[in-house]
């Protein structure tokens, strides 16, 4: 099996697992952990694509909320410090990508002439 085939199989397995998780979470789990979701059904299909993609995070949060391990204060610690670093890194990455792109850019060498090196090609070649 090639690497590409392997990755493709893993991606499919990830999405299929996500589909199982979304069925269980949206029929059983969501009512247990969010009272605002009780009796609200129209919005649930909207959540399916996200569960397909990030189902491990869904399972983890479901577990934390269900078992009462959620620290209510943790909701109020916004991630603001990282923002400075990220802003500078973003700017650096953008400039690096632009420099890389322009440094290798070629123009069609329309003036280059074909050069004949010999009348006969060596037969050994």
């Amino acid at each position, binding site marked *: 099996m090639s690497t590409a085939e392997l990755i493709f199989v893993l991606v499919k397995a990830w999405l299929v697992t996500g589909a199982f998780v979304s069925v269980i979470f949206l029929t059983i789990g969501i009512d247990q952990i969010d009272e605002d979701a009780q009796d609200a059904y129209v919005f649930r299909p909207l959540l399916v694509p996200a569960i397909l993609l990030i189902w491990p995070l869904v399972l983890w949060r479901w577990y934390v909320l269900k078992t009462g391990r959620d620290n209510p204060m943790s909701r109020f610690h916004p991630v603001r410090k990282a923002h400075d670093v990220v802003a500078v890194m973003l700017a650096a990455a953008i400039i690096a990508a632009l420099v890389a792109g322009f440094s290798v850019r*070629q*123009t*069609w*060498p*329309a*003036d*280059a*002439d*074909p*050069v*004949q*090196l*010999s*009348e*006969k*090609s*060596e037969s050994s*070649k």
Partner: protein
Amino acid sequence: MNDREDTPFFIGYLQVPQKLRKLLLVTALALVGFLLGAGLLIGRTQDTDPGGGAFRFDYGQQTVSGVVENLAYPLFHVTEGNDRLKPGQTLMLTGSGKDGVSNRTLPMVGKLATAKGIVLERGSLEMLQLAGGKRGLSEAEKQSSVSVPKPEDLGRWKLTGEICDGKCLSGAMRPGRGLAHKACANLCLFGDIPPVFVSTKPVKGSEFLMVLGPDGGALPKEAYDFIGQYITLEGAVARHGDMLVFKMDPETIELAS
């Protein structure tokens, strides 16, 4: 923060404050105007002319007779043609999609065969996309004494240009070359579509040369690192029928400056 006493305060679900309305309207119109202008400007100045290559469905299906030559990628030398494809012309062959036809041509090497298909044409470069199975390529019932034309040695050359896949270049994709198209070209080449070198200027009358490895085999692995880039490289050029064939030396590849 730079929040002054008179800074208006926007609340999403309420009416927009009077003082903000103008700013937001101007911003919204500016964004719409920017997108409109960018669409017009980029759309109008984009590259739209990939050269004249195209599928010639307008010619209809072509039927010709000729001799199959066995290089790493097959060539078809027309012996009995029609209005479009004349005797003496040499065609590259391809299957549908990104598939070559070596498995079909191998049993017919050196024999007279009948080929049916759609022409892809880019200037002097011609390719025939064979119809499926026996219908596309079959041994002629009457085998006359034909033979593959003797190749003419044109010497060693140093050429500047780009290695492309012969099918997209001939017009299957427009544009069908360059780095944005590289992965697509690789897929064609993996599928046994003949590679073609586009020279900056004609070599002995043609700017297109079918590419082979130094020993006459398939495109060398090293060449894949340079598909879609402008390079110089050396190799032996020979004329097979009216088609130039370039046996490239992978060690000589350099990026063109």
